[in-house]
């Protein structure tokens, strides 16, 4: 419905876009409690659309983030070309995401999934740079995912005889073990591409950093959550405990994703790339949490999914603001922006604290639930992996704050001004949500609990109002009292701040960052003293065995192998050297491989 509404709007003007988004959100929320389903028959095929509680949770992410991102892009996209193209695909992807969440049958799920992939692909290649390389990488992986998904859907149909999700859920346990496993794995490969699970992640860093930041907010915040939504569907509605091995494998894959992507993020120079790898790692946590399959862990996973949309949305917006104002996000070129862009810094700081899981903000609540669920369900080695990843995450958290905002103020960035107000407001709203989710996590717990009912978990949450969730328990009965933590931190912080500010305030003055103790050497204004190159060289040296071979290299080797094979075949059958572009060839091969299996079946 909203998809159609978006489609007929050839959005060209900013105000119009915001109005459309507001209208869609309003329209959506007024129908929120509506559980009615719409049946559509096309040539004997029954399609069913309706909103479940799980879809509801994710649609909140999509709509809130979409609305803020579109407000943000009014300034961000100012002065760029082909705005109609951009906004059309932007709204189309939002619409198709809502479509995915509302589909109650596998066919419309697949169709909306493809629309989402296509519209996001068009935005990835919007900049026009590196289309053949980065854009195609995203496209190839999406194609692999889509074919896997299609095969899964067709298999399910041939065994069950219906595309409707309700029928599939109902008759799935009656299938044989191997049929269950094969359908689940095929579907999960499809969803895993969007969540950027480890062997399938290589498209994500490029695609996230190539597309305009105002879309990356949505790309990393909401679009990747569609994969999480799909995972949740497969894991809780299809699989059952007899296939425990799948849960374990998925959990370990998520943990490996989290660890490796974190280390890649640590060594990045570009803030956009850093955040992109960090997104991959954070989705790893979410997948781990879902795969544990206990009440607390699933709650942690869905909570983290919401939280990730909030804080990663803020961070991509802030980095976009830096890109817009300073011209680059290369951390070796920009530094010392804190006095020029204080509000952007504040939003970044809050969301970094939330991302790192430092108490008392929202990220900590999610991390706490994740750890408690891991340790109380006996996944002792998984918890070590997750902890390694989240400790190493402090490194890139600091890197991005230091690289962009702290350090010495250089002459090259003297002209930079604070971002325009329409970019600041969405950032600060999201940063405010980060704080709110730490103080009153109940407002996220409520919809999460509804979604979990939908996934077949009981209603274990105490019947409280959303502002009354102040004590959290784990499975062993250990607890944290959130408001005591808040009180302690705030009181000590304010007392300390008052002491340090009042004492000798009159005698203190600001001096520039060039005026530092440097063993007698006088630093001139044009001297660049910032330490930015090879910031984490020691840790690179320490973990080099992990970083030595990137998975990218394996894919490239695979591509080269295919290329030579194809070259060989062509020499036999064609005789003359009709040259194709390298990536087109590979793409065709993959199409043929996927297609032949599909038709062969």
């Amino acid at each position, binding site marked *: 419905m909203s998809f159609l509404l978006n489609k007929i709007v050839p959005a060209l003007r900013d105000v119009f876009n915001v109005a459309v988004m507001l209208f869609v959100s309003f329209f959506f929320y007024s129908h929120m409690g509506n559980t009615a389903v719409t049946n559509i028959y096309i040539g004997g095929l029954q399609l069913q659309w309706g909103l479940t509680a799980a879809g509801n949770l994710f649609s909140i992410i999509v709509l809130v983030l979409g609305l803020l991102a579109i407000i943000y892009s009014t300034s961000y996209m100012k002065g760029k070309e082909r705005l109609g193209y951009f906004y059309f695909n932007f709204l189309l992807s939002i619409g198709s995401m809502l479509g995915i969440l509302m589909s109650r049958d596998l066919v419309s799920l697949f169709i909306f999934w493809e629309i989402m992939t296509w519209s996001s692909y068009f935005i990835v290649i919007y900049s026009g740079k590196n289309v053949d390389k980065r854009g195609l990488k995203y496209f190839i992986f999406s194609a692999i995912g889509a074919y896997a998904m299609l095969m899964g859907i067709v298999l399910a149909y041939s065994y069950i005889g219906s595309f409707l999700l309700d029928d599939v859920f109902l008759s799935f346990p009656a299938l044989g073990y191997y049929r269950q496993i094969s359908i689940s794995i095929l579907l999960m490969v499809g969803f895993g591409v969007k969540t950027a699970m480890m062997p399938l992640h290589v498209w994500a860093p490029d695609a996230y950093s190539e597309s305009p930041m105002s879309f990356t907010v949505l790309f990393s915040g909401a679009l990747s959550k569609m994969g999480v939504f799909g995972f949740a569907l497969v894991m809780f509605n299809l699989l059952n405990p007899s296939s425990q091995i799948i849960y374990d494998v998925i959990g370990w894959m998520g943990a490996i994703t989290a660890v490796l992507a974190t280390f890649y993020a640590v060594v990045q120079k570009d803030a956009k790339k850093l955040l992109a790898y960090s997104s991959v790692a954070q989705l790893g946590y979410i997948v781990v949490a879902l795969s544990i399959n206990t009440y607390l862990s699933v709650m942690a996973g869905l909570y983290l999914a919401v939280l990730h949309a909030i804080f990663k949305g803020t961070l991509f917006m802030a980095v976009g603001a830096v890109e817009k104002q300073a011209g680059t996000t290369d951390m070796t070129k920009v530094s*010392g922006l*804190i006095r020029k862009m204080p509000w952007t810094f504040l939003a970044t700081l809050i969301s970094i604290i939330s991302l*790192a899981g*430092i*108490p008392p903000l929202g990220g*900590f609540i999610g*991390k*706490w639930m994740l750890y*408690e669920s891991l*340790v*109380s369900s*006996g996944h*002792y*080695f998984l*918890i*070590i992996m997750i*902890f*390694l990843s989240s*400790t190493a995450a*402090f*490194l890139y958290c*600091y890197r991005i*704050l*230091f690289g962009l905002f*702290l350090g*010495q103020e250089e002459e090259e960035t003297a002209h930079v001004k604070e971002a325009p107000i329409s970019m600041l407001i969405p950032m600060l709203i999201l940063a405010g949500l980060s704080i709110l989710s730490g103080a009153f996590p109940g407002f996220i717990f409520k919809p999460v609990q509804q979604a979990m009912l939908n996934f077949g978990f009981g209603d274990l949450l105490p019947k409280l109002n959303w502002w009354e969730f102040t004590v959290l328990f784990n499975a*062993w009965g*250990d*607890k*944290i*009292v959130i408001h*005591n*933590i808040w009180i*302690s*931190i705030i009181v*000590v*912080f304010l007392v*300390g*701040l008052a002491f*340090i500010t009042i*004492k*000798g305030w009159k*005698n*203190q*003055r*600001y*001096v*520039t*960052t060039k005026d*530092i*103790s440097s063993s007698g050497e006088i630093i001139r204004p044009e001297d660049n*003293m*910032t*330490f930015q190159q090879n*910031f*984490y060289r*020691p*840790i690179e*040296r*320490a973990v080099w065995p992990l970083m030595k071979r990137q998975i990218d290299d394996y894919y490239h080797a695979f591509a080269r192998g295919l290329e030579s094979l194809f070259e060989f075949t062509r020499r036999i059958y064609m005789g003359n050297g009709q040259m194709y572009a390298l990536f087109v060839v590979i793409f065709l091969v993959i199409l043929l491989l996927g297609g032949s299996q599909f038709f062969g079946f």
Partner: protein
Amino acid sequence: MNILTEILGAIATIILAFTVGMFYGGTVRRVIARLQNRVGPPIYQNFIDLLKLQSKSTSIHHGAMQHMGPVFAITASITSLMFVPILNGEGWFWFENLNFSGDLIFLLYMMVFGSLGMALGAGQTGNPNSAIGVSRGLSQMVGYEIPFVMALVALMAQFHTTSITGIMDIQSESGTWMMFANPFAFITAVFAMLGMFHYAPFDIVIAPAEIASGPISEFGGKYLGVMMTSGSIFAFVKLVLYVDLFMGGASNLVMLVIKTFSLYMIPVLWGAVSPRYRTEQAITYFWKWPLVFGFIAIVWAIY
């Protein structure tokens, strides 16, 4: 009335931690001096230093984050102190504070709050040495946190609780200290402790002869004073946490001082006779034998 006594109890705890921590600092200076064949300062030297720092007037700052950096540090120290049980058993109302409001996972994260805040403050000063120090410190943290967490996970797995008071209760009921109930966890935790206290060979963060005290090089006067206070309290918190987890806690203040001091001497004495590691050596040091012991500890805990 209730709130008033709680606040008084908190203040009493802070004063205790501060005093003990400062005296430990002085003692360490003297112990190291004796090992190096010097006389060394009196053990109340740290109080004199603090008085001097606080009586100086600070005339410059480099911006808001530098101003707040030490406040972040002391917030983390005092908040962690509030959540760590000082003494076990009944009748110690004054030191109870918020012991039952948080658990080990919370404490793990609370303890890095301060160093990240400090790192932000150090970052804004623009001194390249500060940034180098921070980069080293965070890298080293990745090193030692892993064995530390392995030790904690071993304890949690063995006794099915994540709360500190729960682990203390188990020890007082069974009468066996954790360092004997799961010796490998204790060994792993001691390895982690070497890194956690930043004494040689792991003093790469401040590395006086290389990077001019690193992160703190631009802080003076009241800032350095607050950081010194915070550091003393934080050292006490870490020691008490170790005593609670592995040595059954302490039933009175004398026992507490004896136990914490004997633990504290491990990194200090080790450091007094060691040179300094390079950063990547310091990281990989924690990823060799400590991980093996941590692995054994977890397997021991499960079976």
